[in-house]
């Protein structure tokens, strides 16, 4: 008999495919994982603690840095929570601008996911194609609010900047461009035999498990659960637009892949309608008291970020600063299922599954 032993392998915190400083301790029997323990907190900045000493406008830039791939939706969930508490009216033009940037952000975020996921699976080129197209959205944002990643664009009661002249036309031009590129993506990648063999049937779970683990976004919808907060509990102006919620059947990485690509299409559809209905003129800031002091009480609001349900729980004591601010971060909650999925999989599938969940470590650790 040859003496054999399990190999304890530290994947991360510095590892090319954990998408940031995330660490998983895996026990390997050969290449098969027998136990996986995620370790996080390397990017914990104490956003919630810091926020207790800041007023709400000052917290907005901190939300940018949570999910830095999708800062616009994070902005929105905070200002939306405060507006709900104070019962503020947001001017229609501002709300449209918010919706347009959020949908653009969803496309940008899914593009980053698409590119990096294929990079994880070993295909190099799609990464650069995805970033080429994301760059166009980033440029649009840059023109709108002067930042490429951490926008700090929304304010309680409206948005900071109106769209510069010609900006809407650029968004309009972007839609057909992106539709063409999506077809190209499908042709290039979606039918690749090796790619399909890598992701079909990998990381499978059923609807009951997904609900039990509180998964959201594509991770929930890949099991066929029809739950998109934009449709189920419409916020902002989403009830005005027609769009479909793509659903999966098998709950595997392939379904998640298909859903995210389809969501880009649906976002383009929403954008098209939003541009048609975009009001001429109007304010971009509503009537907001000089000092933003939500009344005593608490609120929990949730919206659909590209990664799933992002929520904001504010407890206010009537001060300018929140008494307690808690973010429900989709990456953090979705990641919980990882140790369960990994048992019995190979090292290679670890990367496929982790990538398929789509996490941003800034948001996991908050």
């Amino acid at each position: 008999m040859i003496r054999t032993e399990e190999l304890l392998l530290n994947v991360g915190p510095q590892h090319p495919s954990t998408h940031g400083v995330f660490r998983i301790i895996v026990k390997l029997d050969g290449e098969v994982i027998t136990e996986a323990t995620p370790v996080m907190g390397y990017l914990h900045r104490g956003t919630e603690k810091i926020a207790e000493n800041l007023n709400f406008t000052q917290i907005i830039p901190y939300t940018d840095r949570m999910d830095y791939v999708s800062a616009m939706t994070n902005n929105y969930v905070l200002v939306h929570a405060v507006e709900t508490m104070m019962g503020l009216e947001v001017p229609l033009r501002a709300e449209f601008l918010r919706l347009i940037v959020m949908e653009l952000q969803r496309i940008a975020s899914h593009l980053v996911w698409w590119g990096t996921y294929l990079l994880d699976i070993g295909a190099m080129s799609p990464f650069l194609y995805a970033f080429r197209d994301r760059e166009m959205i980033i440029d649009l944002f840059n023109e709108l609010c002067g930042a490429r990643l951490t926008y700090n664009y929304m304010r309680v009661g409206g948005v900071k900047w109106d769209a510069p002249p010609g900006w809407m036309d650029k968004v309009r031009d972007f839609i057909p461009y992106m539709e063409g590129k999506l077809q190209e993506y499908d042709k290039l990648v979606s039918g690749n035999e090796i790619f399909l063999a890598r992701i079909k049937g990998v990381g499978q779970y059923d609807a009951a498990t997904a609900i039990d683990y509180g998964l959201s976004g594509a991770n929930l919808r890949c099991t066929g659960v029809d739950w998109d907060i934009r449709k189920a509990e419409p916020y902002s102006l989403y009830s005005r637009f027609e769009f479909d919620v793509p659903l999966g059947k098998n709950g595997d990485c392939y379904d998640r892949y298909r859903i995210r690509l389809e969501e880009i299409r649906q976002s383009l559809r929403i954008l098209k309608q939003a541009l048609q209905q975009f009001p001429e003129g109007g304010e971009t800031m509503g009537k907001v008291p000089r000092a933003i002091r939500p009344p005593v009480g608490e609120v929990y609001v949730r919206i659909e970020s590209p990664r799933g349900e992002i929520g904001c729980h504010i407890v206010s004591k009537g001060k300018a600063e929140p008494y307690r601010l808690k973010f429900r971060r989709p990456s953090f909650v979705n990641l919980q299922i990882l140790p369960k999925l990994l048992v019995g999989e190979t090292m290679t599938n670890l990367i496929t599954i982790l990538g398929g969940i789509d996490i941003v470590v800034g948001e996991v650790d908050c």
Partner: protein
Amino acid sequence: MGPWLNEAMTWGNALILFLWAVVFLFIVLGFVTYAIFFERKVIGWMQLRIGPNRVGPFGMLQTVADIFKLLIKEDTIPRKADRVLFILAPALAYIPAFSVLAVIPYTQKLYFADLNVGLLYYVALSGLSTLGIVLGGWASNNKYALLGGMRSAAQMISYEVPLVISVVGVILLSGSLNLRVIVEAQSGGWFWNWNFIPQIIGFAIFIIAAVSELNRTPFDLPEAESELVAGYHVEYSGFRFAFFMLSEYVYVYAIAALTTVLFLGGWNAPAPFLDFVPGMIWFLLKFTFIVFSLFWIRATFPRIRVDQLMGLGWKVLLPVSLLNVFLTAVYLELFIK
């Protein structure tokens, strides 16, 4: 070069042979330098990038600068590594890579060794490089390196088998293991006399197995950077790392040359009226095409999984290559004899 190789081995001749080997080494190094440059450029263009363009005209000296950097870099050996093996491994990976080049004939006149078991020599020696990789992975005393080394061993052993069997058809057709004879058997004036058409199954298997032997995408599991960080050479730096890279690219050279010789008719022109072009040019054209294809594959394919790799090797490639041998034998028996 033939008669000259057969002369008696005097001290003078040995010196000349040695000098030839040195010249050849520099040619290979030159190839590797510009293959890397070419690869970066080609993949750059495919990925809408420019590629290296800063050092020297068109970035031609980029790789030279990179190699120079590797040479002057601090040589680190992990404290817990197995020192002797760690130092030995890169050399062990490189020596067979360079030695297999000896049997490749470039033109009718230009070849370095006229071995009557040339193909066997090639296959036998190229298998040794695995040893270097496994040793490197083991000696680094790093878990990622170990996994990479083990994957490499499994992969190389699995793909060596179909690789060898896929060329049996070629051997049957030409009746020799000597690479020069194999090329000459393909000369008939037209390109359909080349082995890749009568041996189309063998050719396909050979290409797949060859890419796998090279550890290149989509079979680059031993160094899968997104899973195993860099696989077996994760602990290597400086010149030792350069040796691993060097042997990888020398194998690119060797496989491209071998494919040209075995399946693409070596130095033969594709049509009789093109005979006025020197054979060396034809060889280089075919050779460059294969090298380009390897880079092309790298830019377009994702990576395959370990179990799928093994499944493909043992369950698909091996039976099909055996079938190919059988079909070729039947064909020879019925129509040629």
